[in-house]
């Protein structure tokens, strides 16, 4: 698992790669906190290269979304693969966090 941060016109894009499960969810949490820092205006998590996420990983996404929400920082996800998409649908988290089909859509929505 690896998180890479990129900036696109004031929007912070965090690209997540690999698998996230209970064995590395703490590392995932730490890497996301480092990537987001304190000054992001809006955040997009690009999950295109995320192969698998377990409930421990979902908890981290939820925690990050809540923390950013308290700071009025918008967060959305994009480019989910089939299996990851279905994890978000079954858990109902697609109702809590905005999910876009691709990065272009996510950036356009975040820029508004």
């Amino acid at each position, binding site marked *: 698992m690896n998180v890479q941060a990129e900036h696109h016109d004031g929007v912070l894009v965090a690209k997540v790669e690999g698998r996230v*499960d*209970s*064995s590395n*969810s703490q590392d995932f949490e730490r890497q996301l906190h480092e990537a987001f820092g304190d000054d992001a205006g809006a955040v997009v998590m690009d999950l295109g290269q995320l192969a*698998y996420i*377990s*409930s*421990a990983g*979902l*908890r981290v996404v*939820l*925690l990050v979304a*809540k923390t950013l929400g308290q700071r009025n920082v918008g967060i959305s996800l994009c480019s989910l693969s089939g299996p990851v998409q279905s994890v978000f*649908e*079954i*858990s*109902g*988290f697609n*109702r*809590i966090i905005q999910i876009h089909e691709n990065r272009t859509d996510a950036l356009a929505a975040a820029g508004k």
Partner: protein
Amino acid sequence: MSDRSSARAARAANPDYKILVVDDEPDLERLIRQRMRRHIRSGRYGFEFAGNGIEALEKLTEVDDIDIVLSDINMPKMDGLTLLQQIPEVNSDIRSVIVSAYGDMENIRTAMNRGAFDFVTKPIDFADLQVTIDRTLSHLDEWRAALASRDKLVALQNELDVATKIQQSILPATFPRVDGCEIFGCMEAARNVGGDFFDVIRLDRGCLGLAVADVSDKGVPAALFMMSSRTLLKGAAVGVGEPALVLGEVNDLLNETNDAAMFVTVFYGVYDPSTRVLTFANGGHNPPLVVHADGSSEELELTGGIALGAVPHFEYGQAKVQLQPGDLVVFFTDGVTEAINLANEEFGLETLQALFEDGKAGSAREAAEMILQAVREFAGEAPQFDDLTCMTLRVADE
């Protein structure tokens, strides 16, 4: 005294390491204090002195944080080789360095066999002595770090044992006997302790509340969250009735204090054996599988729910399914379908469905045990990351 010299004096009074020098040669103390003065002043080493083995043992009892004993071999009253045998009884954390005459291989061998860490020869070469002391100290540091991490591992293991006990203690061990249906449930815990649970709750008018749940994350916090989820669910199931309202109430209560953003996915259904109707609400859990007598199967619909604990004040939906005689409902957690083998392939829903294709599901117990057995065989040597939980409801044949 200036600030600088008083700070230096404070450092020297409280050195990083304490070395006890044992020798009957009175000049040695003066020599060491002189040759090691820079290290003494900087506070790296502090020295204590004793004239023979007896005095050394007294000193070790008096000053309990000595790190190294540097001892001569030939001394009156108690020699260095005898002292070596006595030191571990006073403090096993001390490392000894022996000072012997050049070429005295017999005594050096005896000393090493009695646990000396190293030796230096007389006349003492102070540069060599310092290298020896530093090597001994760095060994000591590593040894102490290893001890500390072992203690941490033991503490962690204890913590995991607590979590395992909590988890095991809340699972039903017996299942109600009800006319017209049969129920069984089992769980195989992952080594790193997850948060699965299942429950069977007796309700009014012969109905049964059936729950299967999976808490996000592992360890003691997850186990405690699981414990309160299960208690709240039981209470709401008895008090509220309708599955959607039960999930709504538990969700609100879990959201009251949940800074860690923990959540639990819950499938909760109420089965009425007299009508064979299962009314259910799904809080973000993977949908159960309904297997028919002919071996065909399908998942129960999702009811638009969210995992409990994630957002407050959510209105859960519910649905009903009319079961037929001979139907089997398999409630499970994603540990079953997401189990992986060494080739990193998932067990998957299709494999689960294929188990029943021949239409011989057997009893509730046989079906549940067959599923866990199939997952175990599939996973082979691959480590089990998640709990495997399977609960089955078998509708009696007509």
